[in-house]
């Protein structure tokens, strides 16, 4: 199993001008590791991070869009894999941090902890896909995550992190959204 924070810290060392769309537990760790205008924190309705990412990827074809999703979140919007597989944006990478629980909401298990997300991605015809469960394998996939022709889907098997509740107030500030828009206009 992978420590999510360590994986995100490693990923952050390679991030340049990609847009990072993060949600829930991944978002709270990501903002702590790399706070920057090109972060986009998916809020408003659980499960939509990859849909926000798809919209950004279509609107910004010159940039890689990297979605940091959760397994509970993805289960709320599994159809997104089908939509992304069909639209097939070359610049979209969708990572799901799979810990088998609703970590931010008390650590309850997801409905079926045996679900195979990579198989779902395969069935949806997503071009590049993988599952990793140790840091060495994750490190070996970073080039694909950032540069492989998309859509890319990766399932990252992570340990459960600290349980919630968490405060999202800071990351959901309107000023952050305005800063992203400004950064994309430059």
């Amino acid at each position, binding site marked *: 199993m992978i420590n999510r924070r360590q994986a995100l810290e490693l990923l952050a060392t390679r991030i340049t001008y990609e847009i990072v*769309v993060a949600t829930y537990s991944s978002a709270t760790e990501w903002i702590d590791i790399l706070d920057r205008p090109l972060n*986009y924190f*998916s*809020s*408003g*309705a659980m*499960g*939509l*991070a*990859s*849909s*926000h*990412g*798809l*919209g*950004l*990827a*279509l*609107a*910004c074809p010159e940039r890689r869009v990297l979605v940091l999703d959760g397994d509970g979140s993805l289960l709320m*919007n599994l*159809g*997104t894999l*089908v*939509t992304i597989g*069909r*639209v097939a944006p070359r610049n979209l990478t969708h990572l799901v941090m799979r810990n088998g629980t609703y970590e931010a909401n008390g650590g309850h298990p997801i409905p079926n902890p045996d679900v195979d997300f990579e198989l779902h991605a395969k069935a949806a015809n997503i071009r590049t896909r993988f599952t990793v469960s140790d840091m060495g394998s994750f490190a070996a996939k970073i080039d694909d995550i950032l540069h492989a022709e998309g859509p890319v889907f990766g399932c990252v098997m992570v340990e459960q992190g600290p349980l919630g509740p968490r405060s999202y107030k800071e990351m959901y500030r*309107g000023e952050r*959204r305005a800063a*992203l*828009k400004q950064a*994309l206009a430059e």
Partner: protein
Amino acid sequence: METASRVGTPPRLRGARVIDEIKAAGVEYVLSVPDQHTSAGLLMPIAKDRDFKLIRVCKEDECLGIAAGSTYRNRRSLILVQYTGFLYAVNAIRGVACEQKLPICMMIGMLGKEPGAAPGDSKRFGLRIIEPILDVLGISHTCVETDADTPAISAKIEEAWAQSKPTAILIGGRPEAA
């Protein structure tokens, strides 16, 4: 105000008129789940129209995420769904479009509405509650029943972008295919 072409013929709503208005508003992406009410007159011609990029989604709330993401580069989308899909997606509409004050434009097919009746006067419960829900959400809306109403379409979309707020265009009449 356009009137009946013949005595006893109800006023028409031509899909082509609606599509012209969508184009006039600079919409690039149409995000849709099919709706019987708008299928022949809107979605089918839009699917064939190279001026639009049609994204078919699995469930209506996906549209809110995709449209939201595209606003960060000022790319205009139109969400084309049935009123039942609108009802399904209300939480995403609340959390993404309303609370984030984004110019998200929805075109909502009012399947089963009686011709010429105001949505609030429909015999169907699901249709009667649409405008009150939009009002509670603070979403500006209009209902397009005939060709004469279509200029409101581009006006609503432009207003949404000028004021960075969501808007809803109810398609009351059934759009005719060309």
